[in-house]
C-alpha cells in the first residue's frame, strides 16, 4: 500500500482495473442503446432491490419469526439445532418455487400451445417434493432425537427450568433477544417434565475482540 494514492484511497492498479471495467460496461451500453435501455436499467436496478431489499429481508424475517414463535410456544424444546429441520425443507421448497414460479403458477399462457405438454403437473410436483422434503426432515429429526436421548449422560448434576436457558451462555443480552441461542448448550432429558441441564461452557461463542 506504499503506492496508495491519497486522493483516491487505493493503489493505482485498483483505479485502472475499475476504469477498465467501466469502459467495458460503457461500451456494452453504447452498443446496446437501440434496445430499450430504460427498461433494462430498471430491470438491473429492480434485480438489486428485489434481491437485497425484498427477498433477503423477507426470508431472514421468516426464519426469525418461525424460530421465535416455536421457542415461545413449544415447551421443552430439544437441545439439538431443531430449527434446521424446519429451515432446510422450507428453504429448499422456496428455492424450487422461486426457480419454477412461471411453471408452477402457470404464468406462461402459451405453454401448452407451444409444447403440447400439460401445464398442470408442476404445481402438484412442487407440492409433492415439498411434502417429501418435510417428511425426510421429520424422519431425520426423529432419528437425531433418539440418538441424542440415548447418548445423554445418565447422571445430571442439576436441573434448571426452561426459562433460564440461555442466560449462562450468551455473553450479552441481545443474544437472547435474537432468539438464536436458547436451544444450544443444553442436553435434552426426556421424562423430566421437559427440563434441561446446562451444558459446559464450551458452547459459548468466542468473544470477538
Amino acid at each position, binding site marked *: 500500500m506504499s503506492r496508495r494514492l491519497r486522493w*483516491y484511497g487505493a493503489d493505482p492498479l485498483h483505479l485502472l482495473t475499475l476504469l477498465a471495467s467501466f469502459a467495458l460496461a460503457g461500451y456494452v*451500453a453504447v452498443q446496446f442503446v437501440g434496445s430499450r435501455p430504460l427498461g433494462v436499467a430498471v430491470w438491473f436496478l429492480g434485480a438489486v432491490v428485489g434481491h437485497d431489499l425484498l427477498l433477503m429481508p423477507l426470508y431472514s424475517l421468516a426464519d426469525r419469526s418461525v424460530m421465535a414463535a416455536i421457542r415461545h410456544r413449544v415447551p421443552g424444546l430439544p437441545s439439538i439445532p431443531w430449527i434446521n429441520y424446519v429451515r432446510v425443507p422450507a428453504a429448499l421448497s422456496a428455492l424450487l418455487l422461486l426457480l419454477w414460479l412461471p411453471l408452477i403458477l402457470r404464468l406462461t399462457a402459451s405453454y401448452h400451445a407451444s409444447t403440447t405438454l400439460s401445464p398442470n403437473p408442476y404445481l402438484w410436483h412442487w407440492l409433492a417434493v415439498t411434502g417429501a422434503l418435510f417428511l425426510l426432515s421429520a424422519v431425520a429429526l426423529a432419528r437425531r432425537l433418539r440418538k441424542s436421548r440415548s447418548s445423554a449422560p445418565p447422571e445430571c448434576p442439576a436441573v434448571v427450568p426452561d426459562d433460564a436457558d*440461555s442466560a449462562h451462555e450468551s455473553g450479552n443480552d441481545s443474544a437472547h433477544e*435474537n432468539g438464536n441461542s436458547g436451544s444450544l448448550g443444553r442436553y435434552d432429558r426426556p421424562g423430566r417434565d421437559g427440563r434441561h441441564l446446562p451444558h459446559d461452557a464450551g458452547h459459548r*461463542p468466542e468473544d470477538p475482540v
Partner: protein
Amino acid sequence: VIGAGNPEPHPGQPSLARRAAQRLGRLPQTDQLPGPFRRSFWRSPVRGPWLTSVLGLVLLGGIAVMFVTGLLSYAAYNPDLSPVNDETPGKGLLGFYLFSWPTHPVWLYRLNQGVHVTLGLVLVPILLAKLWSVLPKLFEWPPVRNLAHALERLSLFLLVGGAVFEFATGIMNIQQWYVFPGSFYTLHFYGAWVFVAGFVVHVGLKAPTVVRALRSRGLLRELRTDTAHTRPEPPDAGHLVSPAPAAPTISRRGVLAFAGAGSLLVLALSAGQSLGGPLRRTALLAPHGQDIGGGPGGFQINVTAAEGGIKATQTGASWRLTLDHAGPAGGTPVSLGRAELLAMPQHTAHLPINCVEGWSSGSQAWTGVRLRDLARLAGTGHPASVLVESLQRRGTFRLAVLSATQIMDPDSLLALRVNGTDLSPDHGYPARVIVPAAPGVHNTKWVASLTFRS
C-alpha cells in the same frame, strides 16, 4: 449486495468523505446508527471471510463455465454469417471470437446447452448463499469512504445487478415467460458482458482476500466441525464477522451442505430434460420433463403447427419446395413436390433436436435428402451458405442461414420422415431441416424454400 468493497481501514488517516462529514457533523458513529447500519445488528456467527470465500470460489468456477458456454451458444447461431442469424447487430468488438460453428461432435450443442442451463439453475442456491454471506456490506457505514470505495461499490452494482439479471432472464426464458424488456437473445447477451465487467474486477480485487481467508482455516477441519463447536471467525478488516455473534444454530459445514443440497435437488429435478430417454421423467420441475406420448413422433416440440400459423392447405398436395441459387451464377429456380423429393436418394441420420433452453429431444432417426444434394440440384457444388425459409408467418426464426460446413455435412438433411413414418405436422411436415450440432431453431420446420449462395 452493493458494498462488498473492502479497502483496508486506516484509522490514522480519515478519508475525505469522513473528514467532510465530521466537519458537517452529520455522520453518526457506527454504534448510534439505526437497524442494519449498526454492525452489531448482524448476529450470524457463521458469516465471515472464510465462508464467503468458499462460496465465492465455487461461483468463480461455475460462472466461468457459464460464460464460456454462453459465448459458445452465441457462436452456434453463426451470427456473422448473415444478418438473418444476428439478433445483436450492435455487438461490435463483443463478437471478436466468433468462428464458424462445427457439425461435429454431434453432441456439442446438446452438451453445451445442457451444461449452460442446468448449471445455471444449480448455481442459484450457491449465489443466494454467497449474497446472504455478504449482506452486511450493503449497509456498511459510512456508505462512501473515498473515491476508490465509491467506484468499487458502483462496480458491485454491475456485479449484483448483472448476476440477478442474467439468472432471472435465463430462468424466465426457459419457461417461456417473456416479461423481460426486449428480445431474450439481445438482453442476455449484453447483460452477460455487463455482468462480466463487474465480475472480473470483483475477482481481481478480492483475490488476495480470498487467498488469505482460505488459508486461515482448513477445509477438512471445518467439515469436521459441528454446530456445537462452531465459533465465529476472528474479526476481519471487511467487517463480515459479527461483533456480537449469537450462538450458532448451524455450522459452517452446515451452510455449505445446505447450499449444496439445494444445488443437488435442483440438479436432480431438472437434468432429465437434457439427458432424455427414461431419465426425462425424473425432471419433475423442468419445462420439458414430461414424455410427450408414444409413437414415432413422440418427442419434444417447442412450436406447434397451429402456433406457427401453418394451415393444412399450405402443406397438402399443393406444397412445393423452391430451390434457388442466388447471385450472378444462378439459374431458374427448381420446384419440387414431396413425391419428387422422396424419389431422390434418401439418407438416414440419428440426431437430437437441442434447444437453447437446455432440453433435448434425444436422438431420432431422420430420413430425407442431403442438403448438399439439394445444393447441387440448385446449381452449386460449393455452396457458401443457404437461406432456409419456413412457411411460418411469424416468429424470429422463420428464417435461418446455414454455413457451408453445415450444408456439406453428410448428416445434414431436408428430412421428410422421422423414425420410419412421415413427419407429423408439429414436427415440420412436409419437410424440415436437421443439421448435426445446430441450435434447435436452426432446424427449420415447414420449409418453403432453400436459397443457396456460392
